[in-house]
């Protein structure tokens, strides 16, 4: 089986496809609207039927997705041998919601990519937009457009958009605010959370899934209330469980129906682990996530 992307309910919306035979290959597409990180399907018992021992599964990954694979391999949740990885150097994917909202487009007939432009044809006319204008936030800060692990590279590698020192500019912008402003910001953002758990379920590294302590009563970390502290704690759980593991694929933020910038929280934790523990997740399949190990002679702590 190969997991890739295919056209969804309209030309702007892409949906994951599971190719089970050669006849399915024609369903496969790749363009800047292929927004989903597919690696989550490989874990969390999400594959049906589960992968047979010794059998390989093919998966299409962008740079960011490939880091998720590395992280999963590190934690032995996936074996490298069971994968055939189609690596796709990616110039960035689009924030479709923003595209629709700002362009005011609705009845879309077709979408084509012409160079650096997206051409959307609706009932009346063709609209041309520079891709750059609607890039997702996660892509604007991308440091790894090229897959870090793959069996086959589908296109030529490309130059990263963001220099490493620029990686956490959104975090830094947030930190320029006062403590109180930050608190107000998160209070108003997280207050919109409806606890639909899309952020959690879309995350390839949120391996607890159905057993998440946000839902269980044994142990009972959270109640059914939807007040602000509960929402804060839920997002703390999500973020802290990803500390030192998150590969910044940005899925949590993309899938949030309430548009809460939840990836930003993980970006901060990644900045901390980078500065404190000199670790960047999802790059070295041999490395151990820093919070699952220790150093008796810790430098910098």
């Amino acid at each position, binding site marked *: 089986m190969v997991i890739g992307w295919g056209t969804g309910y309209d030309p702007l919306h892409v949906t994951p496809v599971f190719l089970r035979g050669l006849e399915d290959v024609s369903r496969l597409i790749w363009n800047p609207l292929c927004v989903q990180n597919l690696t989550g399907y490989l874990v*969390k*018992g999400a594959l049906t039927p*589960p992968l047979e021992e010794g059998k390989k599964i093919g998966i299409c990954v962008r740079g960011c997705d490939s880091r998720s694979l590395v992280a999963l391999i590190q*934690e*032995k*949740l996936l074996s490298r041998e069971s994968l055939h990885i189609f690596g796709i150097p990616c110039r960035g994917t689009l924030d479709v919601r923003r595209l629709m909202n700002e362009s005011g487009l609705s009845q879309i007939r077709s979408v084509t990519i012409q160079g650096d432009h997206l051409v959307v044809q609706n009932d009346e006319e063709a609209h041309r937009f520079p891709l750059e204008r609607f890039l997702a936030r996660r892509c604007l800060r991308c440091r790894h457009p090229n897959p870090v692990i793959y069996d086959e590279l589908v296109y030529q590698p490309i130059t990263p958009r963001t220099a490493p020192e620029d990686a956490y500019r959104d975090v830094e912008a947030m930190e320029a605010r006062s403590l109180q402003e930050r608190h107000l910001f998160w209070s108003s953002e997280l207050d919109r959370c409806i606890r639909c758990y899309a952020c959690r379920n879309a995350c390839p590294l949120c*391996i*607890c*899934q159905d*057993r*998440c*302590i946000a839902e*269980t009563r*044994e*142990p*009972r*970390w959270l109640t059914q209330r939807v007040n602000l502290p509960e929402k804060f704690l839920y997002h703390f759980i999500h973020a802290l*469980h990803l500390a030192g593991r998150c590969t910044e694929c940005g899925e949590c933020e993309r899938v949030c129906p309430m548009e809460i910038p939840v990836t930003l929280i993980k970006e901060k934790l990644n900045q901390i682990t980078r500065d404190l523990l000199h670790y960047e997740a999802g790059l070295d399949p041999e490395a*151990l996530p820093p919070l*699952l*190990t220790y150093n*008796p*002679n810790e430098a910098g702590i």
Partner: protein
Amino acid sequence: MRIGVFVCQCGTNIAGTVDTEAVARRAMEYADVVYATSYVYTCSEPGQQEIQRRIKEMNLQGVVVAACSPRMHEPTFRRAVERAGLNRYMFEMANIREHVSWISTDKEANTRKAMELVHMAVAKLRFNQPLFSSKVPINKRVLIIGAGVAGIQAALDCSDGGLDVVLVEKNPSIGGKMAQLDKTFPTIDCSSCILGPKMVDISQKENVTLHACSEVESVSGYVGNFKVQIRKKATYVNWNACTGCGECVRKCPSRKAPDPFNEHLATARAINIPFPQAIPKKAAINRDYCLHFTKGKCGVCKKICPVNAIDYDMQDELVSEEVGAIIVATGFDLFDHSVYGEYGGGRYPDVISGLQYERILSASGPFGGHIRRPSNGREPRDIVFIACVGSRDASVGRPYCSGVCCMYIAKQAILTRDHLPDSNCYVFYMDIRSPGKNYDEFVRRAQEEYGVQYIRGRVGKIYPRGDRMVVQGADTLLGIQVEVEADLVVLATGVEASAGAGELAEKLRISYDQYGFYMESHPKLRPVETNTAGVFLAGACQGPKDIPASVAQGSAAAAKVQALFARDAIETDPQVALVNERTCVGCLKCIMVCPFGAIQSKTLRDGSIKAEVLASVCQGCGLCNATCPPKAIQLQHATDNQILAELNILCA
């Protein structure tokens, strides 16, 4: 749950600054509390009886005592409630003495704090569960890794105690470093004369299985029930047949094989028995030098062997052993002095290590016990000993004291003066470390009776002048620079962890320090235990040690094993981690962090992977619990729900 609360006045120790009556009254308002009282000395016999009486009378299912520190009286009260028929874990303590009454005189604040602490204890108790220890049977066999003097002593003591012993030695003979020594300090008795009988004992004990030329391949299981794989390396000689007659060695045409037993001062035959007293006294082929293997012809040994023991097709063999405990006695390696460029970096043949000199002194050594210079075979006249080479020197990464060098160079200087009365011996030293019994007297004898010249200072450089060596150093007592011309320079090379110590530690799941020495469980109180239950340490693998200390540790480790084996089963502390298989997602992060190797994975019938705690190995630290993302692994008696209950009292 029906909970009873007993607030101790501790005379006036608590009641002086805490209104204990008020605390008891308030406790009655807490959920599930059906009885609360204040008592003058709860830990006293009548106090304990009062608790027991109330348990029965009020049909209590849980008890909270607010008194002193649980580190003081928790065991006392647990026994008390147990006598009244409650499970000992249906009990909680609130520390209102050390943490309240003794640290503040503000009675109002203290009383309020005591109330909250009692409330927390009650809240936690509501989540307590009766816990029971389980029993794990013990396989009463012991594996001893390393057959130096420490391992030999441990093996003999265990064997004498009636235990089956599996002894693994990586070299072809047992005996370790001690077998290479000439004499021992401070008694100057012959090393092989005192070690030899012990080695022979090992070979004759029926309950000792010796695997020489063997290494531990893997270890699984846990205390009482380890499974060990041992790799027996191919010697190309059938040891069951070999009689050790040595005929093959004498006839072997390949004479350039290295001779590690003689510290490479001599060479050996490609088929060799390391030394005359070797146990087992069996020949082994070094295939890198054997002409049969390198050139494909020869076969002299095969032809000559009277018992037809040569087997060129022999392969490494894996042997499985099951044991209940493991003693690690893998010893040490000698520091490699070639990192000291100023001492020639190993380029000068007459600058040698302490152990090389030991072989020179030994009657079974390369020069038959005559002191000669390796460069030209002549007798030396001036001999310089340099202490602390690879010890107490942070610049080579060895800041620790090797402990034995001061003594062995004193011994070697005395022996030198004995062998060569006309010789001059000089010792450059930093400090003399001689704290053992009769040790300092021994060093003084070297100085006073044997006329060994001790010069306090470091040597900065050794260089050749003609065919002699110039030792250039400082005499810090006189404050001058000194130069001594010497025929032979002996470096008191230090002790370091044996090569491969880390690898073995990982197999055994024990920890080691930054230098590779194995970590004892407690530096003072548990010197031969490790943090892995059932694995013990003996000898220099734990840190530099001399012979008496190694022997003592060998015996100590043996005693620990016997104490462990004195019972038929191990009773486990139930305050261990427990996996809820329903919520375990099989990510196995718990296994990655467990310091004790107490968690393993298992596959359920439906194919799903779950973690499983070995209760007898788990020490109850709770690291897995903190690590587990879905909190499926819970430390019993300190579960998330119990801790959350305490927190909820304070901030929900």
